């Protein structure tokens, strides 16, 4: 029988990786979710609690997919507290993906926005030269630095961590560091995922230099498949037209960087 991608596939959590005191990666087995495109997400059913959109994380083991969840509100905290052997449901994968360019690449991520960027790294050519900028508030919130190094071991690469309080790596905003980089280097492509204000700045900076830039957006999502309308941002539906958009387009989108809609559909400022 054909798999119905719009019905949750219930999987068992097989392994849990502690990334930071508030972030965990939950690993499960499934061929489809093991092999999604960078930028694709799932609607993750937390039985009895809620269902949340989540980027599909890579696993270093074959045939396995993962989720990297930061504990935040009720739903994500409940998922964060799931144990090995617990069941979650996965609908999807949904959404488009980053367009993979070759050459000198810059990736700028913050928090769980790093998830699609880690998968992007698995799609690169050995000849690509890669810089990954990781932004975090403070030292203990930094994660995926080691993983990024591992994924890029055969590439010429640099991982630059920037913490707002300077407790680790460089000090300041990740976008400040990006500005420094752009003053001396050229890139064939810039990819970003993280807080929207950050992405907005990244897109503006890259666009000013005429670099190809793409960002993966988040919006309130209910269906994930282009039916309910809750994820609209200006005239696009983020779940279906995105989540990845070209920077050029985004700068013409009235909402990008400024507003998003809440559960009732009311515009709120970022």
């Amino acid at each position, binding site marked *: 029988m054909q798999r119905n991608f719009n019905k949750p596939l219930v999987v068992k959590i097989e392994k849990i990786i502690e990334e930071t005191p508030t972030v965990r990666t939950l690993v499960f087995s499934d061929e489809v979710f093991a092999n999604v495109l960078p930028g694709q997400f799932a609607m993750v059913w937390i*039985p009895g609690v*809620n*269902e949340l959109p989540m980027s599909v994380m890579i696993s270093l083991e074959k045939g396995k997919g993962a989720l990297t969840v930061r504990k935040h509100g009720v739903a994500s905290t409940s998922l964060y507290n799931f144990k090995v052997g617990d069941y979650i449901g996965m609908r999807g994968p949904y959404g488009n993906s980053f367009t993979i360019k070759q050459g000198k690449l810059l990736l700028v991520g913050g928090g769980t926005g790093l998830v699609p960027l880690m998968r992007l790294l698995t799609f690169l050519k050995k000849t690509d030269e890669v810089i990954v900028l990781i932004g975090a508030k403070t030292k203990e919130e930094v994660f995926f630095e080691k993983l990024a190094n591992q994924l890029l071991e055969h590439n010429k690469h640099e991982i630059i961590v920037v913490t707002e309080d300077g407790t680790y790596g460089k000090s300041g905003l990740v976008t400040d560091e990006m500005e420094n980089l752009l003053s001396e280097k050229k890139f064939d492509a810039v990819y970003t995922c993280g807080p929207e204000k950050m992405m907005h700045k990244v897109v503006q900076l890259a666009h000013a230099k005429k670099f190809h830039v793409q960002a993966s957006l988040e919006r309130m999502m209910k269906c994930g498949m*282009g*039916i*309910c*309308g809750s994820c609209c941002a200006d005239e696009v539906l983020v779940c279906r037209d995105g989540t990845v958009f070209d920077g050029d387009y985004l700068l013409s989108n009235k909402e990008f960087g400024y507003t998003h*809609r809440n559960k009732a*559909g009311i515009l709120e400022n970022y």
Partner: protein
Amino acid sequence: MKPDISTKVGQIELERPTMLASGILGISLEVFARLYKDGAGALVTKSLSKEPWDGYPNPTIVGVKSGYLNAVGLSNPGAPYFAKMIESNTTVPIIVSLVGSLEEDFVFMIKQFENVKILGYELNLSCPHVEKVGLDVGDDPDLVKKIVKSVKSHSKVPVIAKVGLGSSDYLETVSAACESGIDGITAINTIRAMGIDVETTRPLLSNKIGGLSGSAIKPIAVRCVYEISSKFDIPIIGCGGVSDWEDAVEFILAGASAVQIGSAIGEKWTGIFSEINNGISKYMEKKGISKINEMIGIAKKF
């Protein structure tokens, strides 16, 4: 000569017979404008209530073998907010869907849209998964009469009632609405249904029971359009499982003046409107039909 696919639902004139169904992608003017450009003849908004509603927690929509189950719970920003949001609109043909329990609710909401350019209202008498509104209203013909009369006396634009299959005879709801001066009927809404995940043994939707939409319900919806058009002299909009031009034509032959498209957008995306419009147009050309109204209800003659 190219056939003319414009149509009329009573006083409502549409350039094209395919409309966006309520609750589907329908929360922003920008998306409406896009879908209009993509071929929709009119856009029905999400059902609006007096105040903003968050709706139910997720999961609110899942796919099943033959369609979709949803219990979104009528999340919406409220009529006042929405009216403001679309007040600048002059070009996009919008039909405002309203939901509520009392006459006063509807009258209050209509006030909000007094100075906004809209084609008409659609009264949601048929949402199957929120208490005290939708079907709970539609199942009570006396309440339907009161609400329709009030709305009609306050509205300057045509008013359509959207009916569905509840726990009473939906034809009595139609009858009550017609008696009270309704301008058209949309049939049907989703049908009460549920799904259970066998792995966790839990209902799939947070609200447990939701509404079934998509191809699954099309033959039931076609039957309703056929029954209504056989029994009442009222313009009808067909809704339920339209996913290609043949489905749309089937509804028109059964008696619909136009169709609404919902779930199928999830499969075919926004190109579906022009795909179906073109299909209808080619069909008319092949059959030598020059205007939509020549086909409305002709299956009834057999």
